[in-house]
């Protein structure tokens, strides 16, 4: 049995899938084939019926997806968090900020270069809502650059630009081309990042492999899966916190 699952880049880049997939195969017999794309494209593929399930992190988009009837429900699997990354010398002094809003305000004030994903992804939407909360609505392109690419490409560009940017923790930890970039701010509850599993509704796409989807969902949300997620560490740091209910 095979299950085609569209996942976001951040999930795949964390390396967690390399640990989980062989276990799923062993325990459930399902061969999970990951199609790694942006959140928008993942939803698009799912709407067309080209995958059997998706694993993404953009609550509003997911809810709309369910409302349209493409998935019966969303199942929380785990969360991690977003982190603010920037040049080591931290010209906007964000590392001493008391909240992520304050950090962003300082960046705006210092007109330090900030690189936005600009691709309408889960991470991008999160970033926009944070700016909103920080009350910085006018962001001059002289320091606020809109990149328009995936997490990895944005990190590469940011590394060469010495820019501040928002990343998910997993992508950041796994990212190898850090150069002068450092993790400057993290830990604000506002940076919480929930991943959810959505099986495709057989009512919409009769060929969708609902059986395999159910099996994988059960495994991910079951004790084995949740334990495996909790045990996944990089340089001694846990990347995800399982929170299935």
């Amino acid at each position, binding site marked *: 049995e095979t299950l*085609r699952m569209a996942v976001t880049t951040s999930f795949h880049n964390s390396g967690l899938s390399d640990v989980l997939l062989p276990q799923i195969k062993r325990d459930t017999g399902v061969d999970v*084939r990951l199609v790694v794309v942006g959140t928008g494209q993942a939803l698009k593929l799912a709407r067309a019926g*080209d995958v059997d399930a998706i694993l993404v992190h953009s609550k509003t988009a997911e809810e709309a997806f369910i409302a349209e009837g493409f998935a019966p429900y969303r199942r929380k699997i785990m969360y991690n968090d977003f982190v603010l990354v920037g040049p080591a010398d931290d010209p906007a002094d964000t590392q001493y900020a008391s909240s992520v809003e304050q950090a962003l305000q300082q960046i705006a004030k210092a007109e330090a270069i900030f690189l936005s994903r600009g691709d309408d992804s889960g991470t991008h939407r999160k970033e926009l809502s944070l700016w909103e909360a920080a009350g910085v609505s006018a962001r001059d392109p002289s320091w606020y650059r809109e990149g328009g690419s995936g997490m990895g490409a944005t990190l590469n560009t940011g590394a060469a630009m010495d820019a501040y940017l928002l990343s998910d923790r997993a992508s950041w930890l796994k990212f190898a*081309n850090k150069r002068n970039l450092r993790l400057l701010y993290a830990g604000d509850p506002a940076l919480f990042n929930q991943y959810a599993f959505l099986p495709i509704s057989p009512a919409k796409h009769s060929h969708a492999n609902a059986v395999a989807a159910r099996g994988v969902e059960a495994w991910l949300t079951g004790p084995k899966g949740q334990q495996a997620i909790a045990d996944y560490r990089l340089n001694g740091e846990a990347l995800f916190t399982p929170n299935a209910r």
Partner: protein
Amino acid sequence: MNELLEGLSTALRLVFSADRELLEITARSLQVTLSAVLIASLIGLPLGAWLAVNRFRFRRATIIMLNALMGLPPVVVGLIVYILLSRSGPFGVFGLLFTPTAMIIAQVIIITPIIASIAHQAIRELWADYHDLLISLNTSKWQRIKTLIFDARRSLLTASLAGFGRAIGEVGAIMIVGGNIDHVTRVLTTAIALETSKGDFALALALGLILIALAVAVNLAIHLVSGTERGGRW
């Protein structure tokens, strides 16, 4: 800078350790691209010859169009093939999406115009030489095309090799229709894109060097087999 050196040493290490996964994606790259080049040559070379030997109303427009199609953006080709092969598309029932077959289809679309354009240009010259003789000998259109392709084979090599070059390094289209699925549709270029997005430049470069080495090897093999540049004029 030393990332370049690191890439080189990683490449050597990968090659000498005969990494199984590397072998797998390299073989898949070759399989997909060679299939695409073969199919595209079977279409493009006769098409180029046909355009050289036929005078018809929209000939010039066709040639300009073909030249322009050399600029087909891979991502757009990928999208269109995706839409056609998608479950909700007209060919969805075949279940070809996210298979090597889909990647071959996309590459064929991308490189056929290139092969046909270059072939047309090469054959036009030979046709100018042969025109009177072949007309005089009362050849059929198809005999003309066969003769021209056969006698221009050395020049046509450049056409097919240009197609090969375009296909082997292509990533935009096959990423969309193949999905870069591990062990199923991952090839060298999609792996390079993946490693680049992870910021692992050394590994990405290493895979890139292996890809270039592969291209060199294929070119070398084809040149050796076909014995170009050996004799005098052809």
